[in-house]
């Protein structure tokens, strides 16, 4: 098995991971940045690596290109063979990385909630369809309903429209009063306000409905229509795709596996982004959903701290505080409504991998109980989807993940290590 060694291993090459790796190198440490995607950028900067149109993306991706940070892409972390010895799986086989300190910047995923028909081909996450389109998924001429909750819906709709789709409507489950308060809350964040205004501009003519959500997706082999509820009225809308997401959930699996303390579904860190476990730093969305500005500020702090440069410049402290306030505004105004817990019927599949019905899961006391009784969460995705849904539907707390964190070939665990390569320094 291939093996590399580095001083600081950064897992996740989104904004937080890039900022962390670049800042660690600037502070004099050697860093290796690894991501499961084919190129850096994470979800928010997908496609920016070769054509950066976003200012912050251009700044940080240029910094990454110009820095001696070693990078490896297309590798998913599946286990730790020992503390400080990470095991990755990729198309070219497994890779082990020995490190002295670790920065986890695993980002977030979308919260998908079950409703009748949500497993039909043609039903996607909202950010999900957005990133698929950025990687070549064709939507030109298609009729698409965007639904769910949060500012991501606007960004997703704008991407779909630019790719030639006909966005029929954006259905936001949050009510008008909360949306107005959220908009007012953007005042201290002019960057965010401008972004929202620009998105609205690009979506001129697209109906934006608040207090509205998709109750059901219909079709036989693929999505043909959705039933949209807005207040007391229900409307059937014929469409080719539904992009639906209910906010973001921190990807805490790696941190949990390593024993880091969690609170409210996010990793607990100190002002230096240090977790409860010695030598493990966490940055970005896994510490609580807060967006790209927060991810960059936290990544910079984590990189500097992991490199032994403990002091935080005033500008960085200010960025952290401001982005934390924005995160709070987000949480407060996009709380999910109770009606969303009533969408799934007894026969609706809750665990998509193991096809566990809603009624069978609802009869269990906890996620662990559901695992034992029904195999919920024991398939390919390892509860990444149904775990977050169960948390919202039943108040379950996520069961502790076990290795491997994702399906991986046995060679990841059995193959002996070849002579460790010298420290990775070249950019791959």
């Amino acid at each position, binding site marked *: 098995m291939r093996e590399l060694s580095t001083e600081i291993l950064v897992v996740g090459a989104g904004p937080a991971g890039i900022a962390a790796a670049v800042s660690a190198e600037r502070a004099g440490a050697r860093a290796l940045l690894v991501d499961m995607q*084919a190129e850096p950028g994470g979800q928010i900067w997908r496609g920016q690596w070769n054509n950066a149109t976003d200012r912050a993306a251009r700044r940080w991706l240029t910094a990454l290109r110009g820095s001696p940070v070693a990078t490896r892409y297309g590798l998913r972390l599946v286990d730790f063979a020992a503390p400080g010895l990470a095991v990755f799986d990729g198309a070219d086989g497994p890779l082990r990385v020995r490190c002295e300190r670790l920065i986890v910047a695993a980002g977030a995923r979308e919260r998908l909630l079950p409703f009748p028909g949500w497993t039909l*081909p043609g039903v996607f996450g909202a950010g*999900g369809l957005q990133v*698929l389109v950025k990687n070549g*998924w064709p939507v030109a001429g298609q009729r698409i309903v965007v639904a769910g909750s949060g500012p991501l819906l606007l960004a997703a709709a704008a991407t779909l429209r630019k790719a030639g789709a006909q966005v029929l409507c954006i259905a936001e489950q949050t009510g008008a009063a909360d949306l107005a308060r959220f908009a007012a809350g953007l005042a201290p964040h002019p960057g965010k306000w401008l972004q929202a205004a620009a998105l609205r501009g690009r979506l001129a003519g697209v109906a934006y409905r608040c207090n509205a959500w998709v109750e059901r997706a219909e079709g036989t082999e693929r999505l043909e229509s959705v039933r949209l509820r807005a207040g007391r009225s229900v409307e059937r809308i014929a469409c080719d795709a539904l992009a639906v997401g209910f906010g973001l959930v921190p990807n805490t699996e790696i941190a949990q596996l390593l024993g880091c303390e969690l609170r409210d579904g996010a990793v607990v860190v100190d002002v230096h982004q240090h977790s409860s476990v010695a030598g493990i730093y966490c940055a970005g969305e896994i510490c609580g959903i807060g967006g790209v500005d927060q991810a960059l500020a936290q990544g910079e702090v984590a990189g500097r701290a992991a490199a032994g440069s403990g002091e935080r410049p005033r500008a960085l402290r200010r960025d952290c505080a401001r982005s934390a306030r924005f995160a709070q505004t987000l949480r407060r105004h996009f709380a999910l409504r109770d009606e969303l817990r009533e969408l799934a019927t007894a026969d609706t599949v809750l665990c*998509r991998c193991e096809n566990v019905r809603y009624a069978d899961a609802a009869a269990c006391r906890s996620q662990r109980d559901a695992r034992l009784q029904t195999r919920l969460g024991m398939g*390919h995705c390892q509860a990444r*989807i149904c775990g977050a849904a169960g948390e919202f539907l039943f108040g379950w707390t996520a069961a502790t993940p076990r290795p491997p964190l994702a399906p991986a070939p046995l060679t990841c665990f059995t193959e002996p290590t070849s002579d460790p390569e010298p420290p990775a320094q070249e950019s791959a």
Partner: protein
Amino acid sequence: MSTDVRLRVDGVEVVVPAGCSVAAALRLAGHVSTRRALDGGGRGACCGMGVCFECRVRINGVERLGCLARVADGMEIVCDA
């Protein structure tokens, strides 16, 4: 980025733009559903970011996620649809 890539999907040759994901290539080739769930229902790409595993297919004999994999010349893709 403008060149095309030739690959085979379930034994049929397909030409797709270079740089796109395997998931996108399958959709461009007309595949809506790319695997069968335990109840026989069709499933296709959903989360787009390597989380839900719905878009898994065999690429050159190894199970991989279509949304994370990039197309390459000569790729042999097998769906379970």
